[in-house]
């Protein structure tokens, strides 16, 4: 089995694809492209093309087999990303999207040019690189109907694989979990002891109407009703006390769901200095 010459066209395609991927990161595209295009191009430009171009520089045509080239291309792409992190880490812009796009494009472009030159100078048919492996003869030819059947099987396998992956994702999205509602009460800032925030996050699977009762010690302070919160939505209710909570004082908030108006659904309570803490580290 002899490896075939790596066509020059492949390196030109490599440069074009890499340029397109970098362009989508660095500039507004001249035509509207959907996220899938950026995902496909970006994945190729990160995980395949830099290594493929570098493999073209390191190994001329005929020197390694296709599977070996694939292996080295993928490996080098990952390794280029690893090396690039240190370069970008030491630069002012850091590991930003623009820096990544510029660096990966530069590596791919330079390597593609070098690989093109090398491949054009290489002899048309070099020696078989590895003599230690046995020589493999061609497979016996098959009847045409069998080839057709195999082709159908291959197409069916790809179709089934795509369907299976999509079905698997769909199944996880529809996994039945008990719905829940988040309810919180937080001082808005640590410095102003009179400003608070009540919050509701609805993850019940459908919109709900809520009601909140707020107590200062045992006295009703405020009431909010007909609070409609859509599924996966949140609602924040800031409020201000006339004076900070004193020693022994607490604020209690009780949440009711409109379909069970007499049953406390969630309850939170804060005492003074509820969020006394060190300053956030960032």
């Amino acid at each position: 089995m002899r490896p075939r010459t790596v066509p020059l066209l492949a390196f030109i395609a490599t440069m074009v694809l890499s340029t397109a991927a970098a362009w989508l990161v660095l500039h507004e595209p001249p035509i509207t492209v959907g996220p899938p295009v950026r995902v496909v191009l970006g994945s190729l430009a990160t995980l395949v093309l830099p290594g493929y171009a570098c493999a073209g520089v390191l190994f001329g045509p005929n020197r390694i087999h296709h599977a070996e080239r694939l292996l080295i291309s993928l490996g080098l792409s990952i390794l280029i990303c690893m090396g690039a992190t240190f370069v970008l880490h030491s630069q002012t812009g850091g590991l930003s999207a623009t820096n990544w796009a510029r660096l990966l494009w530069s590596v791919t472009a330079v390597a593609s040019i070098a690989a093109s030159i090398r491949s054009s100078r290489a002899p048309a048919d070099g020696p078989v690189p590895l003599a230690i492996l046995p020589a493999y003869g061609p497979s016996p030819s098959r009847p045409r109907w069998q080839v057709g059947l195999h082709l159908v099987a291959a197409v069916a396998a790809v179709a089934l694989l795509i369907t299976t992956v999509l079905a698997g994702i769909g199944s996880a999205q529809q996994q039945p979990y008990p719905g829940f509602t988040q309810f919180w009460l937080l001082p808005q800032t640590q410095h102003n002891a009179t400003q608070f925030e009540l919050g509701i996050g609805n993850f019940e699977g459908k919109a709900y109407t809520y009601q909140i009762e707020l107590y200062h010690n045992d006295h009703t302070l405020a009431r909010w009703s007909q609070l409609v919160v859509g599924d996966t939505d949140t609602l924040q209710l800031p409020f201000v006390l006339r004076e900070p909570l004193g020693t022994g004082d607490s604020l209690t908030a009780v949440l009711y769901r409109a379909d069970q108006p007499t049953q406390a659904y969630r309850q939170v309570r804060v005492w003074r200095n509820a969020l006394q803490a060190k300053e956030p580290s960032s």
Partner: protein
Amino acid sequence: MIEWVQQQLLRLWQPCWRILASPHPRPLPAATDGFGWVAPVSLIGVLGLTVVVLAFHAGRHSHSLAPVLYWGGLLLIYMPLALRLLQPATPRRERLIVAVLMGMLLYLVKVLYSPLDFRFSDELQHWRSTADILATERLFTYNYILPVSPLYPGLQAPTVALIQMTGLPIFPAGVLVLGTARLIFVLALFHLAELIGRDAYVGGVAVLVYATNPHFLFFHSMYLYQSMAVPLMLLALFALVRWEHSMLPEQPGLRLVAVWAMFGVVMTHHITSYGMAAVLLLWLAANLYVRWRGTARPPLIGWTAMLVLVLILTWMVYVATVTVGYLAPQLGRALLDLTGLIAGEKKTEETFRPPSGPLLERLISLMMVAATLAYVSVAAAVIWVRQQHNALALAVGVGALGYFLSLVLRFSSSGAEMTGRLWTFIYIFQAIALGILLREAWQAGTRRFVLRLGSGALVLLLFLGSLTAGWPPYWGRLPGPYLVSAAERSVTPEGIAVGQWSAQLGRGKRFATDFTNYMMVGAYGAHDPIFRVAGLLLTPDMGADEQAFVRDNDLDFVLIDERLSTGLPQRGYFFDSHEPNIFRYTEPLSMSLLTKYQRTPGVSRIYDSGNLVMYSVRAWSENNAP
């Protein structure tokens, strides 16, 4: 009876002896290079994946058929592909594609277990490192839930690059990066084994046997640094072996790939880099032996072993200084346990924790270990006798015997983890060794029927054993409803939501909570949760001792999962492995214990989502509240 056993053993030994003594090996059936039966076999493999997805769906809906579908689906993926790889007449191209397909389909099993987010605790630790790099656009940020992770950024580098180039979130980017790593793994292992065994048959068998590593299906597919480092290690080894057999024009390129990949391993995962150094030293020793015997003149690869050692030490001294402190306690404890056992100062029941699970599964695991010991012993002997000129094969034979060492380590208190880590490397040797053994068996003229049946039955047993002995354990093999303290089965949308909600409290808050929510607030909230929390969370009341505990540990919040009162912990503990009653719980935690905080004046209950309740304890501990 003894006589009968002796006779049977003698009968079993006869084929082995025939392999060892065969003076004129016959060539394998003529090898070709076509696609063979790759399309129909692929279709069957993909069908197996479909059945596994059905099993996951059934598991999510608590359907009783789920386990049957799961086992059936996995066997449908593995066995047809394995049988094609075990056939000596399979064309090389088909063999390579089938090997790749096996690796990728088994990777998809793990991906489709949880196709929306990372659920395994190790994955969440590395998720945090990736999120930190994205947030700061700098390397070497501090990750409290796994401090050593940011110091080995080899996994995060391609993930962050992919995220920045595509705009994808961390999860899908991680899945794509690890898919690429898996492809590298399979291709590198196939080619490496093919070069060592000098036959594509050995390459194919190596992949199918490595797939029986108990950690291959899930652990090696997780978003963690080892999953990236091991493929790079194999790439480096492949490039070195290929260099040894190559002509001048491609040698500089292969050397560059090898050195670069070695550097990649060193900056990706500590233990894999040590494993790589050990493999290179073993290979060097084998080369020296072959030279000494005068059967061949393999090149000395001492420079590579030296280079790896220098790279490892440089990285440890200048970047990852905490690695020693991270690994030394585990290794030290294991050595102390083993020396204690040998000296009779400790009893086995003090250090060894027997495997749990259904009886049949434990039986299969034991049979898998016995079968592995048997084939490793025979393969090592066959390689020693028949491959004296092949230094790499000799290294493989000796390395495969490391399986015995791994089983000895199993008797230490951290044995399960140490054994698992060691198997990552030993299985490479084992896989190639079994490939060489089977190839030699075919060449020695062993009966085809016996070989086909025997090798098929062996890989079936190894694969079943890898499932019963691997992770997840029996209770977590299928996705499904919440289970108490059950790692990934305890991760629910409510837990993820509290982690994400807690991010608004500001980074780096100190939390006391259970193991699952430790990961939630540590990863999604970027907080600094602590372990060893029994002194606060398992006491019946909130008094002076608890106040001192909060102050001493600089705690801000306590996050309580009230579902801990609904069942026994699957992992043997509720909060962390330092609990006094670990593996001895006979009843769930009482609700009174879990709600003691709301009875304590000054402890603010700031968050409530039904099952999860968050309390603020700092002001209470410092007597600033009420």
